[in-house]
């Protein structure tokens, strides 16, 4: 059923361009990581991009060396504290509502305008991460909306069609969402116990099937042979607390150390992001 509130394309479904690989003899660069295993990509963060909002921020993660691989571009706006809708029940706290949406042109596949489950899922992860950070009881019977538009997904134009790495992309996206939302919240002047930032780490297998897996931070799926597991962590540095942990993959439970090291790396990545975040906030108030 076509959405009659929007201008729909032709009746017959259209096909995203199919490239003939014949003409391009394996231009896909050999999968190698362009950075040392525990350095994150450069990150650019700026507040106040949406003057009409109570608070806002824009995050951009440098596009990787490999051609055609886009970096993450996020724009976040915060509206509130605002009065709750009449229907809403009394709340002694501020009511947090998060909303993450990919722009139609953000990923290889054109995204629809309606949120799909993965986007809803992102929203919930974000909510969990932020609710731990804000001091909700400062704002009785009020609400705040946090809206993130993923202008450009962290995706490889060449390969993402051929790999089931959307999940890993989601993790990277979530990491960015958390950081940018924290900046926007601070910009909006909503009390937080700390600046929360997101970090991603992954267990990757670079040299074939039976090679020894290694742990890297801020992974780009296209730069690794195979990602065995990854985790995204929202971390409060000054309190040394984790507000959201999302692990996914396939790990033997026999050696828990693998898992712990993964989490540690995740936290390390989050700390890196946090440095950028604090720096950005500092210059906002200058």
């Amino acid at each position, binding site marked *: 059923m076509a959405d009659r509130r929007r201008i729909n394309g032709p009746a017959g479904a259209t096909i995203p361009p199919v490239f003939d690989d014949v003409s391009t003899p394996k231009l896909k660069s050999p999968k190698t990581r362009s950075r040392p295993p525990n350095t994150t990509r450069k990150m650019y963060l700026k507040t*106040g991009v949406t*003057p*009409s909002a*109570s608070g806002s921020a824009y995050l951009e993660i440098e596009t990787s060396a490999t051609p055609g691989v886009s970096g993450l571009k996020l724009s976040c706006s915060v509206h*509130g*504290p*605002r*009065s*709750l809708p*009449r229907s*809403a*029940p*009394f*709340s002694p706290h501020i009511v947090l509502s998060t909303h993450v949406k990919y722009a139609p042109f953000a990923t290889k596949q054109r995204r629809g305008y309606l949120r799909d489950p993965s986007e809803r899922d992102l929203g919930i992860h974000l909510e969990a991460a932020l609710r731990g950070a804000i*001091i909700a009881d*400062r*704002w*009785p*019977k*009020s609400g705040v909306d946090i809206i993130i538009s993923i202008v450009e997904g962290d995706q490889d134009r060449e390969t993402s069609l051929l790999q089931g790495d959307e999940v890993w992309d989601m993790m990277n996206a979530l990491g960015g969402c958390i950081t940018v939302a924290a900046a926007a919240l*601070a*910009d*909006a*002047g909503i*009390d*937080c*116990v*700390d*600046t929360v930032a997101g970090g991603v780490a992954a267990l990757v297998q670079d040299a074939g099937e039976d090679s020894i897996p290694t742990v890297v931070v801020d992974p780009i799926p296209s730069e690794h042979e195979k990602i065995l597991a990854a985790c995204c962590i929202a971390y*409060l*540095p*000054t*309190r040394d607390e984790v507000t959201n942990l999302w692990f996914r993959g396939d790990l033997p439970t026999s050696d828990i150390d693998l898992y712990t090291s993964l989490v540690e790396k995740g936290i390390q990545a989050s700390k890196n992001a946090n440095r950028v975040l*604090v720096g950005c*906030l*500092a210059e*906002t*108030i*200058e």
Partner: protein
Amino acid sequence: MTTTTTTTAPPTLAVPGQLLGPASRYQPGPGTHLHNANLYASLLGHVHITQPAQQPQQRQRAPGPAKRLTKITPAPAPAPTPPAELPTISVAVAEVRSSRVPAAGAGAGAAVASGGGGGERKKREVLPEVGNVVLCRVVRITPRQAVVAILVCGDSVLEAEWQGLIRVQDVRATEKDRVRIYESFRPGDVVRAEVISLGDQANYYLSTTRNELGVVLAVSEAGNTMQPVSWKEFRDPETGAMELRKVAQPQPQ
């Protein structure tokens, strides 16, 4: 009124989560929070330290209408807060420099003041609290109450509109039984009122009992801005027609 200490630890600028000092030295003010015996910033902004001398900050305000209390109660017990000698430390976004906010009379000046949308940092949103004096616009009236939209709280303009309620018994202090809402407010009036309770999930409860509270800006049927002539009447300067209102006593500038 605010002075940033040059003496010790606390930084002049603070980022949420930043350590401000031990709870033993300061009282936590707005924009700060307490975490195991230390004070941390909870907002992004400049650090202010208020000496206890001027503790009643800008909300200068006489004790509330004691007669509202339904039962005789003991004087509030001393709160388990550090003794009042301690200075209050607070974090707030740098405010719009008052020099750029002339009275609206100076039109061109005013233009500059509010110019450029997100040009200067807007003040942080505040919530109406019990005891605040707010400015609101009347949205609809019923025989029982007037529904208003709270637009200004204290001296800070609110981003959001908060719905308020002036019940018929809170319009004026005397002859409450004689009060008629439609003789006190009309939709569109701008009213100065005081918050008397957080109210229900939707509304703050407001009162205009005190003299300086009531309608401050009213537009006549003819659509002209009217001037107050008595405690209960406005006059249209052009048509000369009188209209009934609960008029706020013009305040000495």
